[in-house]
């Protein structure tokens, strides 16, 4: 046992010395490998955490949202729809939602303006998201001037600023009273943007949706399960960012594997020949190459995964945030709750370490089985 350990230690010692002899080549290989794993792991962590957050937060979304379509576009829903839908058996409540977008010409930002039917919401007061407060440099008690659709100024006093912890749902929000909402958008009374429908039994949701669709052929009911599914697939592997990173990672691994599988350099072949001529067994040479693969790939894997964890969960994924930001003026601080499990780590390990180590062994086995003299003369 001790002898076997000593043998491995000696071969590892030789491997490290051999890798350090080609310091520049191996360090650049390690850096590239590390970057590939870092990007792949960051994407896996980011998407998994985002999906978990979406599933947990949107669990409290309305059971169903009913929209109205006119000429293929979403239109306002008349109040009569709400009254009719309330009469459908199984429906417990129908809340007309008033919401829209406000383009701020001062800074080019888009705000989501929403009317709250909370009786405590008073007119001329607003609750705003941390993103809005940041771009407009506002504090509680300040006035937020908005220009209404009939070009009259609407002065809103900031009553609340949502904490930045709720950025993921409210960074760009301005919550005002229904009266201010009607005034701001010159919104017709007796209409709503859409309807939030509550149903007593979740199993009845498809039946209620079908009844609404029959009763109002111009309506489009969206179930909570569809909202949840949208977010579960929002960064699907077919999505742009995921596909881009997966494709570049895959391409990098193909290049790594191709480089290894097409054979060893003349210097490496010569080294194998010398080792065999001084008495190394084929198994020793294979063990040497196995350790070489392990040293590079395991180091890249460990560093890549740990750095990706820090990048996504401690630094709020600045690399991805820049990609998502696009033309947005307000963008949330992606303070995601970490999600890591053995399955993710195992997938990353088998996707990265195993193919590289295998690709290192095969050409080496070919070189190690030929005559030492021929290997040295190669």
């Amino acid at each position, binding site marked *: 046992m001790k002898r076997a350990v000593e043998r491995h230690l*000696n071969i590892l*010692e030789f491997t*490290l010395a051999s890798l350090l002899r080609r310091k520049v080549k191996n360090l650049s290989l390690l850096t590239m490998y590390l970057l590939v794993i870092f990007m792949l792991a960051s994407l896996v962590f980011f998407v998994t955490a985002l999906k978990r957050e979406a599933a*947990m*937060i*949107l669990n*409290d*979304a309305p059971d169903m*949202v009913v929209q109205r*379509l006119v000429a*293929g576009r*979403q239109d306002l829903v008349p109040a009569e729809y709400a009254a009719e839908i309330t009469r459908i058996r199984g429906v417990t409540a129908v*809340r007309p*939602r008033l919401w829209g977008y406000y383009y701020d010409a001062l800074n080019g930002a*888009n705000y*989501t303006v*929403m009317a709250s039917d909370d009786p405590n919401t008073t007119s001329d007061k607003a609750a705003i998201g941390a993103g809005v407060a940041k771009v407009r440099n506002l504090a509680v008690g300040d006035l937020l001037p908005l220009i209404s659709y009939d070009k009259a100024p609407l002065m809103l006093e900031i009553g609340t600023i949502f904490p930045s*912890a*709720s*950025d*993921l*749902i409210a*960074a*760009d*929000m301005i*919550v005002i009273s229904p009266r201010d909402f009607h005034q701001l958008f010159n919104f017709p009374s007796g209409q709503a943007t859409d309807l*939030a429908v509550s149903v007593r039994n979740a199993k009845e949701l498809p039946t209620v949706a079908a009844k609404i669709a029959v009763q109002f052929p111009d309506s489009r009911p*969206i179930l909570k399960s*569809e909202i949840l*599914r*949208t*977010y579960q*697939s*929002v*960064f699907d592997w*077919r*999505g*742009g960012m995921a596909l881009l990173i997966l494709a570049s990672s895959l391409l990098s691994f193909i290049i790594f594997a191709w480089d290894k599988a097409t054979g060893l350099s003349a210097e490496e072949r010569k080294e194998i020949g010398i080792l065999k001529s001084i008495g190394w067994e084929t198994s020793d040479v294979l063990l040497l190459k196995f350790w070489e693969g392990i040293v590079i790939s*395991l*180091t890249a894997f*460990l560093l890549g*995964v*740990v750095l990706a964890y820090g990048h996504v*969960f401690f630094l709020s994924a600045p690399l991805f945030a820049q*990609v*998502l*930001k*696009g*033309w*947005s*003026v307000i*963008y*949330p601080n992606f303070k995601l*709750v*970490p*999600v*890591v*499990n*053995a399955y993710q*780590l195992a997938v990353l390990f088998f996707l990265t370490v195993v193919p590289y180590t295998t690709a290192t062994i095969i050409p080496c086995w070919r070189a190690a089985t030929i005559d030492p003299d021929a290997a040295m003369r190669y």
Partner: protein
Amino acid sequence: MRRSLQFLLFTSFGLLILMLLPLHAHRAQQLSVAELRGQSFLLKSLQLTDLCLVTEARYTRHPAMADRHSPFQEHPVALEHFPSGSLILPPLHGRDKP
């Protein structure tokens, strides 16, 4: 110390940190429960349907409420011109309904 032992120590340290990651994540999840309750209250009271991931276009700000073809609704030959439109998939509900 031998170089091989140094490497093994470094790797063991790395593996230890790797094994601590799920523990850290679990602890952070427990701590975030109260925060999440506050967010759920806001979500429930306003009946919100979407996460605020991107604010540049309405169909990426509220993907669950958008049509599959909303990026192309601006005018008859409109092309997608928001970067986030190429990153976020269209909603699922548009696949089987108009």
